[in-house]
């Protein structure tokens, strides 16, 4: 089963070198243990562009689709046998990247 582990940030700022080193070490472990699917960090919400092409022509809007204090700063996708393992990995991920995380199953 695959779960999305979203990293939630509330103070604009990229990961510090120490945090980055911890995240890399954690990523390596995910690969060794066979949990790795994908992961990545995201640029600040202000860099986002929203596109709506449901109408006649595509509308491009500057900025995130949702203005909020907390935003998605990055994510992991992990492959695990049961939710409990995903929760445990997420708890470790939160420690390593020094941010809150959220776990959600893929359909």
């Amino acid at each position, binding site marked *: *089963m695959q779960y999305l582990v979203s990293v939630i940030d509330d103070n604009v700022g990229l990961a510090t070198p120490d945090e980055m080193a911890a995240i890399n070490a954690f990523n390596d472990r995910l690969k060794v243990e066979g949990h790795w699917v994908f992961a990545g960090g995201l640029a600040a919400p202000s860099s986002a562009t929203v596109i709506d092409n449901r109408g006649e022509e595509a509308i491009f809007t500057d900025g995130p689709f949702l203005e909020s204090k907390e935003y998605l700063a990055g994510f992991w996708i992990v492959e695990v046998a049961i*939710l409990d393992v995903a929760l445990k990995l997420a708890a470790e991920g939160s420690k390593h990247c020094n941010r809150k995380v959220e776990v*959600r199953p893929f359909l």
Partner: protein
Amino acid sequence: MSVVDVREVITQAHHDEWARVVASLARRFGDLDVAEEAAAEAFATAVERWPADGVPPNPGGWLTTTANRKAIDRIRRENKRDDKQKEAQSMYDDPPEPLDAIDDERLRLIFTCCHPALAMEARVALTLRMFGGLTVPEIARAFLVPETAMGQRITRAKAKIKAARIPYRVPSVQDLPGRISGVLAVLYLIFNEGYLATGHDTDPVRHDLTAEAIRLTRLIRALMPDDGEVAGLLALMLLTEARRTARISVSGELVTLDEQDREAWDAALIAEGQRLVRERLAVGVAPGRYQILAAINAVHTSARHMRDTDWSQVVALYDQLVRLDPSPIVALNRAVAVAELDGPEVALVAVDRLEDKLADYHAYHATRADLLRRLGRSQQSRAAYAKAIGLAGNTAETAYLTRRRDQLG
């Protein structure tokens, strides 16, 4: 067998078999909804048939078979036959778990109901419904929540179990201690809600909830007889429940330990609780939180009179507890024992240190009020009683605090 006898047999079967029936169905069909409804239908069928047909020789077996049939009927009706059977098959095909895993389906059920990914109130509701077999209206009444809201809470919890794929299994051995303490926290919360019911319109003691918590903890203990904290929590509940009738006066007022009629304590519950505490002491493994709390209550219930209480033992046990759990509430309870051992003045110094953390907690003010009263500082005591009364949520406690305040000279 008379109709009344049959009804008693059904009530007993409900207590003994509900969790087993739900658990085995949940395992077979991989769906708590199906398990819950089929179990409820099976019991309803028993109520219908047993008075006329007689009680079957093996009520548990009859209920499981009937519930299985109901579940299959239901799945057919819903026309989801293929999916569900595939799902059921996949649950059967789970690789066998290591032998050291405790194998009882009811344990899978309780660990699922108390999974950390669920909100605490959802865990409580699910545990009472799925494991305890209480109906939604019963649980709603117990927690003073409208029936529809409680129904939604349970439905949402079941939906989350399905969508997030909360596993239906006993946690791995390394996770077990943490997960057991999660289960015990749910049971203790149910017990405490019964023992010191909050809400201005409820009975001060809800025997239905304390009894249910004890029954479920007994069941967990039967499933995990070697776990010290499970035994500790059961002992703690028994030794607390033993004092239940002495704890509320005829006029509905809280009676504190020093004023309780100890003759009214339940000797059988005390004997059972103390036996459990002695058993745990004999094992010689460092006790956890519930075992220490049980030991403290064992000391209290060993004293024929308040003045016979071995307070140095009580304080020593609290010292042990503080090392495990340095929370201000433990420190407050320790101070109450210190007042008996070293006097109210020493205790008050300790209590006053907790002000920052406990300013909104009624027991902090009630404890201060009592210590100030004993020190003859009536005016300050009166103010502390007033704060405690303002914060207390239990009707018997409010009545007690009000009388104490009014008795001040």
